[in-house]
């Protein structure tokens, strides 16, 4: 019983922060300290959950039994452990960064911002530890709705429009595609529970598998598969901490996490391999991967470029799931971590640049590297990790994805991965290169806030640390299918 305590703790901490934050609106220091404290507590319990998982403990509990087949329940899976660690660990960094950003930028309505920030984390943690499709769906929607006030934070016409598109795509796809997919699974198998080897085998005729998978793949709009990717770039009107934690970590990772859970725990990779049900998904994700990299090159707005880069990186993860071998899925789940850390570094850096200079166009960044070297070094390291250069963490996940496609002999996929890496090099490294080597165009005033610079550097360092200490993460991914 005591072991389940950690699940409660990690779920309840952000929820408590959500309820307390509005009460503390009169004392900003106390209110803002809730974020880092909550992050540390949640991360601590996630670490404990991870070590319990590695010891082979089965943790699950039912929060609420609606009737015989429906329940809101939580269960620890390998993927969930990874996503939980990422979301809670980066919450610590992001919450410190957020304080610096919001104060440095003198944003309005800070209490509302922090309130919804915590509830979004709560939803992400609940998604990570959800034990069945119903629970997953519930908190998937909670996450969408709790991030709306953050996206539309500025409350001007642009934010309003962006919020509308954001809600429209995410809620629309989830209602029209994801919900019927879940109900079909419910009708076919009589239950919504996850099982390590899938539940559909023997319950569905083979020719319907690709269609059901399509309902899931396009229903999970948060995974940003084309053509349902538009919400991610428009969501960039939000303050940068939102883009950093939510649109590089919590929200999009919730999407690809759900994708991987569906592929492994509902379909089962053996079943998908048998029926060739996921072959089409390899192509869709490969196309998304290439196209969004190409679009990223054309973007001059720094955050928009990062957004398209995110879309492309998410497709790596979906691709790993679609290849549906043990190694590819391991690579995909490692990529959840690696991309999260790398991309949050980049977004932190982008936010630092904005707070310090109020510049958001890449073409304006010429020569600015000399006045804020630490930020751009961090940006450089983060870029390398995204590209997949050792000794950054990102190299591991790309390596495994490549291995997976070699194993299945998808030679086209390998070449697509290589092309995309080259594109990554081009559109990411252009930014620090311009900042350091081009002559400065205009004299811009640079103001720094220490709470912004240090989390950025720390995140950059983390990408290197993750290259060296990959062992525990690999142990978790080895246990994904429970047979090694």
């Amino acid at each position, binding site marked *: 019983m005591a072991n389940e305590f950690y699940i409660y703790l990690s779920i309840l901490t952000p929820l408590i922060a959500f309820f307390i934050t509005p009460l503390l609106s009169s004392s900003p220091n106390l209110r803002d300290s809730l974020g880092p404290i909550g992050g540390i507590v949640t991360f601590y319990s996630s670490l404990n959950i991870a070590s319990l998982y590695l010891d082979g403990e089965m943790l699950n509990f039912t929060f609420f039994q609606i009737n015989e087949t*429906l329940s809101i329940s939580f269960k620890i899976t390998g993927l969930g452990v990874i996503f939980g660690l990422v979301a809670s660990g980066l919450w610590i960094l992001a919450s410190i960064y957020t304080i610096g950003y919001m104060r440095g930028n003198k944003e309005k309505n800070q209490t509302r911002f922090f309130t919804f920030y915590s509830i979004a984390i709560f939803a992400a943690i609940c998604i990570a530890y959800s034990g069945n499709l119903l629970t997953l769906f519930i908190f998937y929607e909670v996450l969408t709705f709790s991030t709306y006030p953050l996206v539309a934070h500025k409350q001007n016409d642009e934010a*309003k429009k962006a919020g509308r598109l954001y809600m429209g795509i995410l809620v629309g796809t989830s*209602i*029209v595609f994801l919900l*019927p997919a879940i109900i*079909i699974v419910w*009708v076919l198998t009589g239950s919504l529970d996850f099982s390590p080897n899938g539940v559909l085998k023997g319950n569905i005729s083979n020719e319907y598998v690709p269609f059901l998978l399509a309902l899931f793949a396009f229903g999970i709009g948060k995974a940003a598969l084309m053509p349902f990717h538009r919400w991610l770039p428009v969501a960039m009107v939000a303050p940068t901490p939102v883009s950093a934690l939510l649109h590089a970590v919590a929200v999009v990772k919730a999407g690809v996490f759900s994708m991987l859970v569906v592929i492994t725990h509902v379909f089962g990779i053996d079943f998908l391999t048998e029926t060739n049900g996921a072959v089409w998904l390899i192509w869709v994700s490969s196309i998304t991967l290439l196209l969004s990299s190409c679009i990223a090159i054309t973007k001059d707005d720094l955050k928009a470029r990062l957004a398209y880069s995110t879309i492309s990186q998410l497709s790596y993860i979906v691709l790993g799931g679609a290849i549906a071998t043990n190694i590819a899925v391991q690579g995909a789940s490692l990529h959840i971590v690696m991309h999260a850390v790398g991309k949050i570094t980049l977004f932190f850096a982008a936010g630092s640049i904005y707070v310090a200079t109020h510049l958001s166009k890449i073409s304006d960044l010429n020569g600015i590297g000399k006045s804020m070297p630490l930020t751009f070094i961090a940006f450089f390291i983060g870029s390398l990790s995204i590209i997949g250069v050792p000794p950054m963490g990102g190299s591991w996940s790309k390596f495994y994805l490549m291995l997976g496609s070699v194993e299945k002999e998808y030679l086209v996929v390998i070449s697509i991965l290589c092309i995309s890496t080259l594109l990554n090099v081009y559109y990411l490294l252009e930014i620090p290169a311009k900042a350091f080597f081009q002559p400065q165009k205009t004299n811009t005033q640079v103001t720094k806030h220490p709470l912004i610079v240090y989390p950025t550097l720390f995140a950059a360092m983390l990408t290197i640390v993750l290259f060296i200490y990959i062992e525990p993460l690999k142990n978790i991914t080895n246990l994904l299918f429970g047979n090694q």
Partner: protein
Amino acid sequence: MMSFIIKNLPILIVITPLMFSLIVAVLNNNRLAWALSTFATFLTMIFTILLCFEVSYKSNISYYLGNWPPPLGIEYVIDTISIIPIMIVSVIGLIATLFAHNFFTLEIDEKLVSKTYSLWLLTIAGLIGLITTADAFNLFVFLEISSLSAVALVALGSKVDRKALVAGYNYLILGAVGATFYVIGVGLLYGVTGTLNMGDLAQKIPALGLNKSVIVAFAFMMLGIMVKAAVFPLHIWLPNAYAYAPSPVSVLLAATATKVSIYILVRISYTIFGSSYEIYSFESLRYILLYLAILAMFAGTIMAIFEKDVKKLLAHSSIAQIGYIILGISLATSSGIASSFIHLINHALIKAGLFMSVVAMGYYTLKRIDVNTIAGIGRRLPITFFAFVICALSLAGLPLTVGFISKLYLIKAAYMSEGIWLPFLILVSSALSLIYIWKLIEGLWYNQKNSKPEKIKELPEIYIPLLFITFLNIYFGIDAGLIIDNSFIASDALISGIK
């Protein structure tokens, strides 16, 4: 005393509001009239709860009015099916009465307020009577009681907007047409069977075989009730009636009136004609209902998207929601009808909450509640706005609200009997409904540039009913077992009645 009450519960739930409506009519003190009405509806709810316990271990209570046995006398039947709409009417009746006072004193001439309460109780009595009676003609009487008093209530909105008179008139004419159709059907049935008792009719109809008067009677009765239930395209009286009625009347009618008519629709097709189910082949009628329901889903939603008047918008959305309920019935399976019952309950909760919060936000503007006139009000009334958002999300069927449970079961039932195309249509229409819901939420939250600083503050008097119904919207969205189980018990009882 107690055993006397228990024995006479089926009539007490009808007679209590009826008697109090007579008392209230002669009062001069408006506050006292309100207090007495609240007391009457409270008493009715207590009786209903007692009745629930009775039904839970007897499952079928038959009550002879004046101790006259059925074929001649009037019989009241309370069973696992009818207890559901009774519960809806009595709970919503109490909540709406609690809510009503501020609005009636504001929107209606002072001299008429106590009369309004009298009509109000009469409507509730009529609605409950409609559900309990097992006599086809007695049902007509209650149909007239409830709709005539409802028409008068709608017309009372004329102090705020004189269009209420036209709306009431339309409601009167179409309601009368519906009731007449119904009574023609009853007359034909009486002619061939010589009985008015529903159970008796059910036994005698199969023996008649393929009798033309029975077919015609069936058509007349169904059509009449479909007008009352505002099944598309017989819905035209509804939007204006809801929009121009005094605020509390909109709440009461939107949450209960059409629900009761839908219940009668189910009762006619399953209890009276159910035993000859094979002969009259519900199969073809079923498809008519199914297509009408799909049309209603889309037509209601699209009309709501283009509507500016908030109350009318909610009325159009009601038409779409009635479509969902009819859809479940038209599937003619146990899970389909159960999903209809689930949505019957849940939609009552949703619409009551929505109408309450919307009219509360329009309290200070007193004019037509337009999307533009309420811009930015949500910010100044955060608690009412919160209730509105919860109920609106519930209407859209978002998880953790009752609307989600309805949708989950409706889609499951639709998928099981019709395949994937039907759930897809349902979901597209419900995704479309997000457009108007979002229009309202945005409109309430974002400030209009030229909004004049009016004196607007919260109305604490309505917190209890409003927050209670919001709470129910969430509570039954999580602890949904009670509603789901009872709906399945009811639908199984209906289906087994056929065989």
